[in-house]
């Protein structure tokens, strides 16, 4: 194996590590071979003295952290992808600018509207509950008034209405708690989902 073959093999084997690192290593071995040739060895001898190229590659790959390799891989994939669609995609994105901005705005607006509706419903639930409590309390005052003035039939009606209001209010309290919990969970889920989507896009 001559110097050029050795260095080419090395370069090929080190595709998985960052380019600067790989270039630096290839230069290092090139210098080592040249120095041996300068000392009087033949090219073949000098290459042999360096050792087996495959075990050198394995050693370098073993020393390189897994994260570096993964990062390099991802970067290369990204470059590949960008290289393929970039010019056309860029032109489309720019040309269709007046079109996709309103679309994004509408989707965003719809999302906000859905959340506003959800939380408005939660507020409405609480309002109804409070109204029922107030209504129940009002009925009791009314019943007292009717009893004092001797209108027994009205008082009976008032007791019925009051009990109905209070009973419904108690049920509504449970409904409110469940509904609020659900709304909070849904909101958190949606926010987490958006975060994942964004970080995923950055990583790809």
């Amino acid at each position, binding site marked *: 194996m001559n110097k050029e073959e050795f260095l080419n093999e090395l370069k090929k084997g080190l595709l998985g590590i960052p380019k600067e690192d790989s270039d630096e290593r290839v230069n*290092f071995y090139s*210098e080592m071979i040249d120095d041996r040739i300068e000392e009087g060895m033949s090219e073949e001898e000098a290459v042999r003295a*360096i*050792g087996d190229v495959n075990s050198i590659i394995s050693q370098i790959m073993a020393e390189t952290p897994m994260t570096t390799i993964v990062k390099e891989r991802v970067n290369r994939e990204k470059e590949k992808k960008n290289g393929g669609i970039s010019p056309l995609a860029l032109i489309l994105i720019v040309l269709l600018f007046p079109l996709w901005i309103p679309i994004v705005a509408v989707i965003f607006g719809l999302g906000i509207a859905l959340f506003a509706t959800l939380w408005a419903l939660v507020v409405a639930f609480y309002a109804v509950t409070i109204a029922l409590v107030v209504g129940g309390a009002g009925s009791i005052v009314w019943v007292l008034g009717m009893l004092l003035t001797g209108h027994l039939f009205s008082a009976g009606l008032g007791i019925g209405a009051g009990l109905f209001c209070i009973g419904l209010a108690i049920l509504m309290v449970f409904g409110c708690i469940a509904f609020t919990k659900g709304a909070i969970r849904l909101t958190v889920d949606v926010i987490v989902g958006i975060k994942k989507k964004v970080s995923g896009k950055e990583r790809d």
Partner: protein
Amino acid sequence: MDTQMKRGLLDVCVLAAIQYEDSYGYQIIKDMKPYMELSESTLYTILKRLETAKLLTVRTAEHDGRLRKYYRITDSGRRRIEEFKEDWKEMESIYQFITREEVGNE
């Protein structure tokens, strides 16, 4: 030998190889040959580590129509060698303790 210990020892050896004058990769390997066999890959890793730790500096110079990298020790690099000598003295006394002969009791 314990890898951590060996690594530290190799670092100091390479620093010692450039302590009196600047040197280059192959020369370092040759200088160390009588004491220990050092592969190119291992040397590269050590030089990189020492450079990152600012214990040596690297310059590229032309030699015979090609480029060669020369390594120069820094003040921190010299300090590292001194530290190693101090550590060695300490090790030596520990070694004395470990290998001492049993006294009396015969």
